[in-house]
């Protein structure tokens, strides 16, 4: 893998210069919002904020947070800061509950977005010689078009296959010599498995796939390994991150060293906060990521609460970039449980359970208050009946699960084996936590 940097001026500038640029852009943004956004103007008046109050980056703390509810409450165009004729594109997020969140872009916003995506795509190995298949669904979702424009910007040959139709995806891959794929980790894995199934007719060496830009859902190191091994032939994939409220993909992405996701900090000012108290945490702490999009004008967003839990590393990477790197998302602040003072995420339990085949992938966390102390019960479904033969085997399974989870969380837990299909199934986002502490 070659280390490539699309915009060294911006990606490798000294921290001092970068922070000066961020401050300059932040001041301009606050001034812009005050003058053009009714939503922010009203907020600024209420909190006594003006652009000249921002003298250093930490003065951003005067500005209240923006939440997904703000976007929902102003649905569809209440947060626009330009006349509608200036808007050249609209996207919306799925909106599992209530109104979807709508985002809008000026021509300049789209240019900035493309630049951001170009950087992460280039860092991940795409070049002007690449043939890229985009297997994200096109439409209101920002993923497909975001990557599309960014990849066109670097001069790659873009093949907008969209999602689904595995047969066609594989045919184009073989016939076009597609070497780069944009997909969710799970679809990328599914395609590899489907390709293998057709191995007699089309052996794996009929594919030239070398690079994967995976995103839109989390990818554990174990899963990444599985994806790379399934495609074989030196296939290398990286993770990238973004959300429609902050343009879409392109906020951050991994370089070839895969030691955190480089944030395009000249465009995004990031903070990490305690999601319970809203207090800004010191550099390096783990907490909820809060992002200000410094360059967006159509629908500006200040201090957006992503609800994603991560931490930031400001050390210069071996790739040469000076931009901060965010760790893979540990979990969602919505899902976070505080048990005996320890932060617990369902995703941590999930990773502990991976690879244990005698239980189903469904689990439930039950939190109780016993006396003055919290207790956590992890309920898993036993599916391997052969373990019933020897009681010790069941105890061994329980011990294995117990040890794995305890090693990750560092707190005492109770593991319960339950009958199959007794843990409720959810078609959408799983509700894995039953918190009985205040009931």
């Amino acid at each position, binding site marked *: 893998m070659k280390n490539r940097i699309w915009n060294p001026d911006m990606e490798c500038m000294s921290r001092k210069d970068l922070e000066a640029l961020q401050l300059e852009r932040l001041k301009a943004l606050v001034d812009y919002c005050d003058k053009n956004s009714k939503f922010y103007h009203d907020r600024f008046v209420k909190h006594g904020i003006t652009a000249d109050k921002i003298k250093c980056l930490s003065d951003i703390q005067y500005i209240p947070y923006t939440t997904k509810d703000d976007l929902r409450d102003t649905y569809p165009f209440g947060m626009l800061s330009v006349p509608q004729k200036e808007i050249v594109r609209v996207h919306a997020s799925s909106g599992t509950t209530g109104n979807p969140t709508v985002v809008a872009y000026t021509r300049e916003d789209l240019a900035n977005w493309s630049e951001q995506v170009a950087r992460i795509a280039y860092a991940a190995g795409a070049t002007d010689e690449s043939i890229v298949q985009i297997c994200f669904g096109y439409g209101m979702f920002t993923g497909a078009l975001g990557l599309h424009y960014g990849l066109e910007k670097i001069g790659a040959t873009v093949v907008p296959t969209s999602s689904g139709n595995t047969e066609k995806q594989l045919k184009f891959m073989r016939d076009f010599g597609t070497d780069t794929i944009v997909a969710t980790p799970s679809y990328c894995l599914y395609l590899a498995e489907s390709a293998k199934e057709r191995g007699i007719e089309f052996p794996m060496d009929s594919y030239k796939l070398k690079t994967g830009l995976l995103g839109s859902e989390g990818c554990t190191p174990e899963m990444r390994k599985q994806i790379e091994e399934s495609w074989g032939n030196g296939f290398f994939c990286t993770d990238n991150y973004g959300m429609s409220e902050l343009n879409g993909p392109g906020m951050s992405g991994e370089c070839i060293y895969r030691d955190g996701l480089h944030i395009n900090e000249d465009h995004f000012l990031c903070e990490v906060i305690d999601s319970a108290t809203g207090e800004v945490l010191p550099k390096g702490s783990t907490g909820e990521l809060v992002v200000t999009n410094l360059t967006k004008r159509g629908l500006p967003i200040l201090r957006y609460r992503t609800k994603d839990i991560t931490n930031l590393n400001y050390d210069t990477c071996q790739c040469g970039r000076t931009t901060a790197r965010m760790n893979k998302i540990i979990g969602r602040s919505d899902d976070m449980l505080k048990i005996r003072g320890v932060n617990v995420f369902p995703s941590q339990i999930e990773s502990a359970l991976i690879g244990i085949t005698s239980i189903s992938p469904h689990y439930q966390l039950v939190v109780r208050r016993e006396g003055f102390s919290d207790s956590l019960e992890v309920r898993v479904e036993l599916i391997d009946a052969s373990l019933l033969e020897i009681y010790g085997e069941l105890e061994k399974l329980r011990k294995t699960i117990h040890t794995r989870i305890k090693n990750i969380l560092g707190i005492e837990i109770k593991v319960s084996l339950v009958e199959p*299909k007794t843990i409720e199934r959810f078609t959408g986002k799983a509700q894995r936590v039953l918190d009985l502490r205040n009931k």
Partner: protein
Amino acid sequence: MNIKQLSIFVENKQGRLAEITETITKANANIRALSIADTTDFGILRIIVDKPDEAAACLKEAGVTVSVTNVIAIGIDDNPGAFSRPMRLLSDAGVDVEYMYAFITRKSEKAYVILRVADNDAATKVLIENGVELLDEATFHELM
């Protein structure tokens, strides 16, 4: 000389044993012997029924975790030392006993013990060679 036994995972919650045994009733299977090993949150119910395959199928359909295994059943005379003898034989032959449970019948003076051992063939061999009564499936069900 093996007899089929059902091992059933039973969560420790009210009514679960009733539901499971009702499911066995649906298969029209008659329970001949049973044992339950329990912990605080679950138990393993082990039963010998006259229609093991039908009962297992019915339970599986109801979503119950169940396995069918072969166990052996021996007849024991009603006098002191009658049970220790086969235990000694198994021990000397190096056959581990995982668990066991006993039952009696109206048709015989003997007591019967279901044994789950690590190696059925080795156990069967040493017990038969030493004149211990082993029941096959047909004899077992005739006794009932």
